[in-house]
């Protein structure tokens, strides 16, 4: 058949115990909203942060960086010097936990005793009103199809059973799916490190947890002056041979599997899906940010315990800033994936002349230190330092191109720092090089004696162009290294 209006008992607001009423448009406003409650009990596409069910969302790897203290040193004769005390270090944690678990059941079938669905008003042969049970198709056209589109946006009563990201363990509009967060942003807790506490635990952080939560409101939240779950539609209970209204649980069990089926792939136009930083969908809840300290010193700290116990340790220092390129958003999309064209190829570089992009870590020379930057053919930019052990890091460095390069791109790196003179290795400074055929790197080596100088810095200017003649510069950036000389 088609859309039909059910009958419900509004005795709860009347004086008669059986005041049967044909549903009007107002009633449908609320019964459709109530589908949000049903979907919260029977979610179509579930999200988890633990277990192995479903599939991991792509494009995750939420990256969290934070500084930890160096190991402490104790001596019986004097304090270890700053150079003798291990440095703070930058730690990187990555999180890929969000799993999408679509409903795998089929479309409900059947119509038990031909009276499974709500009744509606009909005129019988004699012209007096009577009730008739809806068919399966009536039910779908009346209660299922009209609500499918309401789940694609928002986190209100009508969107129960959809998911969002939150930094609250007990959000007002939902329930977290697990105490295991999807990601964590840790920042060194400077105040937690004290001289009197040496040896301090190396990791002492303030953590912000990013949880995944399901939109879920209490049943009573759906009560209004016009509607409560006590006046859900009537149906003919064949086992009792009487008319009665569905309970909330019965209504959820009846409608829920239909929503699960259609919203999890049964109808491509209404299928819900989740992604991280994808092209489709709306951002759901909090945006993940990686914040960390930008060091303002070595954090070298002493503690005198007694004449046989001189302790030192280096603590994280600095102020908290957001790591460039660290943001990630959890998104939900309803409908087929867009056929958006591939993103336009663009290039970009980081840093300014006054605040260049800085290499990770604060290496300490031992009399021979090599530092540099690598610009790779796949678009990544990597810092490099050989402080005893070679270290490479792309953390927080945005790629120089947003997609796989097409055609040729050229790069030119110019030394900004001119004194003192360092040994240069890698590609020739000041010349253009084809970056699309091999990685281009620029290094300097500082061989000055340990402790013969304090902190040092080297800066480069970097340019990108389609040409190798210095015209049509497409992007300009600045990069630097800061390191300790030990003095």
């Amino acid at each position, binding site marked *: 058949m088609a859309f039909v209006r059910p009958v419900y008992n509004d005795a709860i607001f009347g004086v008669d115990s059986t005041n049967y009423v044909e549903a009007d448009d107002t009633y449908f406003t609320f019964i459709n909203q109530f589908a949000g409650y049903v979907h919260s009990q029977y979610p179509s596409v579930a999200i988890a942060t633990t277990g192995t069910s479903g599939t991991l969302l792509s494009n995750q790897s939420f990256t969290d960086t934070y500084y930890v203290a160096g190991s402490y040193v104790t001596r019986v004769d004097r304090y270890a010097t700053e150079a003798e005390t291990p440095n703070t270090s930058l730690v990187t944690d990555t999180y890929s936990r969000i799993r999408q678990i679509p409903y795998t059941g089929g479309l409900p079938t059947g*119509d038990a*005793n*031909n*009276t*499974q*669905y709500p*009744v509606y008003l*009909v005129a*019988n042969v*004699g012209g*007096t*009103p*009577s*009730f*008739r*049970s*809806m*068919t*399966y198709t*009536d039910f779908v056209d009346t209660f299922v199809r009209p609500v499918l589109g309401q789940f694609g946006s928002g986190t209100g009563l009508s969107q129960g059973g959809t998911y969002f990201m939150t930094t609250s363990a007990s959000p007002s509009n939902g329930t977290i799916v697990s105490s295991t967060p999807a990601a964590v942003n840790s920042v060194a807790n400077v105040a937690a490190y004290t001289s009197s506490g040496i040896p301090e635990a190396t990791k002492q952080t303030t953590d912000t947890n990013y949880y995944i939560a399901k939109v879920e409101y209490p049943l009573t939240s759906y009560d209004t002056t016009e509607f409560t779950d006590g006046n859900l539609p009537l149906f*003919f209970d*064949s086992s009792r*041979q009487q*008319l009665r209204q569905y309970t909330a649980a019965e209504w959820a069990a009846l409608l829920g599997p239909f929503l699960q089926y259609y919203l999890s792939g049964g109808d491509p136009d209404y299928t819900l899906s989740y992604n991280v930083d994808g092209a489709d969908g709306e951002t759901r809840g909090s945006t993940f940010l990686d914040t960390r300290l930008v060091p303002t010193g070595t954090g070298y700290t002493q503690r005198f315990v007694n004449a046989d116990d001189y302790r030192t340790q280096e603590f994280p220092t600095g102020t908290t800033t957001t790591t460039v390129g660290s943001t990630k958003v959890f998104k939900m999309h309803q409908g087929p994936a867009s056929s958006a064209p591939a993103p336009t190829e663009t290039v970009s570089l980081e840093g300014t002349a006054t605040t260049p992009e800085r290499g990770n870590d604060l290496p300490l020379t031992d009399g021979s230190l090599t530092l540099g930057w690598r610009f790779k053919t796949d678009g990544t930019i990597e810092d490099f330092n050989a402080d005893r052990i070679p270290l490479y890091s792309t953390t927080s460095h945005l790629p120089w191109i947003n997609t796989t390069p097409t055609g040729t791109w050229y790069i030119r790196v110019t030394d900004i720092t001119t004194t003192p003179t360092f040994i240069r290795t890698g590609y020739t400074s000041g010349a253009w090089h084809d970056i699309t055929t091999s990685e281009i790197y620029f290094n300097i080596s500082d061989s000055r004696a340990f402790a013969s100088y304090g902190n040092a810095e080297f800066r480069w200017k970097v340019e990108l162009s389609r040409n190798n003649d210095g015209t049509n510069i497409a992007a300009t950036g600045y990069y630097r290294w800061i390191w300790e000389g030990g003095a």
Partner: protein
Amino acid sequence: MALKIGNEEIISNDKTLSLISATDNITANTINNAIVAQNNVFIIYDSTGAEVRRFYCAAPPA
């Protein structure tokens, strides 16, 4: 003349029935059939249109 059981009046002079505490099957069926005879019906049909339940209702006299 009213009909009394003990001191309780069961049928008054104006033919009002009072204080009936139960009915036997014959009386119950008689009353039920009287209601059925009024033919004020309320029918429940299943989703195929077949009648699954018929209620007879008392209604105010026309």
